[in-house]
């Protein structure tokens, strides 16, 4: 099954950097959203999205709230979620894990770390 990523970040720059990184890893199928609310709209409209990469701090609906919304939706609850954020303190990471993100990447990330986390998620899903 081909992977289709949903890249959620309010920064256009970060969305493009994540996409470039995915392309370098051999993935080119993606859609993007500027905040959690837009992401939920995209998820509702597109059944083929099977991997979410989300930032934390975003206007309207944060990445954490997006994660909680996905996990509480019966149809979406098993979607793999990778949080890519500047928040790197213990309390934040635990909060994200409690919201049930599958893995956590602290910005600025390296391609190796991104690849490793995507592979880890895919191998356990």
């Amino acid at each position, binding site marked *: 099954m081909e992977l289709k990523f949903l890249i959620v*970040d*309010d*920064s*256009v*720059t*970060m969305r*493009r*950097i994540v996409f*470039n*990184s995915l392309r*370098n890893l051999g993935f080119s199928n993606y859609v993007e959203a500027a905040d959690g609310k837009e992401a939920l709209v995209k998820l509702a409209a597109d059944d083929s999205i099977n991997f979410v990469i989300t930032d*934390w*701090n*975003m*206007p309207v609906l*944060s990445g954490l709230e997006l994660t909680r919304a996905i996990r509480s939706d019966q149809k979406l609850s098993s979607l793999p979620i990778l949080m890519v*954020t*500047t*928040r*790197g*303190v*213990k309390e934040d*990471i*635990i909060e994200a*894990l*409690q919201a049930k993100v599958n*893995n*956590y*990447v*602290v*910005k*600025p*990330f*390296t*391609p190796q*770390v991104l690849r490793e986390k995507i592979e880890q998620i895919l191998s356990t899903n």
Partner: protein
Amino acid sequence: MNRPANMTELFEKLNDLKSVFRYGQKLIPIIQSLIDFMQETVPLLENINSSIADSTTKIPKASNQIADVTEATELATTEILDIVDLINSDIDSIEKDLKGLTEREKQKSKIIQKLTEAVKDNPEAKSLLINYEELNNEYEELNSVLSVLQKIKNDAYNITLSLQVQDITSQQLSAVNHLISGVQNKLSLLLVDFQETNNDELKTMKIAVPDDASFNPEARYGKDVSQQQLADSLVNNNGFRTTQDEIDKLFS
């Protein structure tokens, strides 16, 4: 009526009054200096007041300028990303052509080998073919150019990764903007109610970052991997079994 007692009381009162007058006499220069101080201070306070008014009007401009900087850097970063994409696209196209040429070189080499085999009984022809192959085989050079192109692609990709700095600095600038707005609110309070403002109240007013802020005031750009290591440790331990010692070790 007990006259001597009344007189004694009167004298006591007079003595008290005398003390009060003496004290008053001592107080007069102090009060005078206080008045002088007030006279000097009032223009200063007026200056402070007008400075606050001035700062309060300038703060929104500073805030807008910070927002403009963020917008400009995002635009510039997007332009860089566009250019890097174009470079990558050109490299992909050159790579494709070079790979085609490499394949043709391989085919040419195979044909020359067959020809050499066919003319093995003609030493002159064989020697000429070997010379021809040596002069025309550009396989090695093409591979070398391909590896240089791959290096350029990697370098271009690393440029895009470094552009994460834009997102991180824009979050820092948003945090500064938030602080500026907080300072403006405090100054506005001082300005509106300069004399009645409770100083303690102002001191305790904190410029807190709201939970739903779309920026992280702690965002940092650097090569420190300790936070990623902490995240990995927490993820691997399902977030709850990492000890404080392990966390301290990561930051030591």
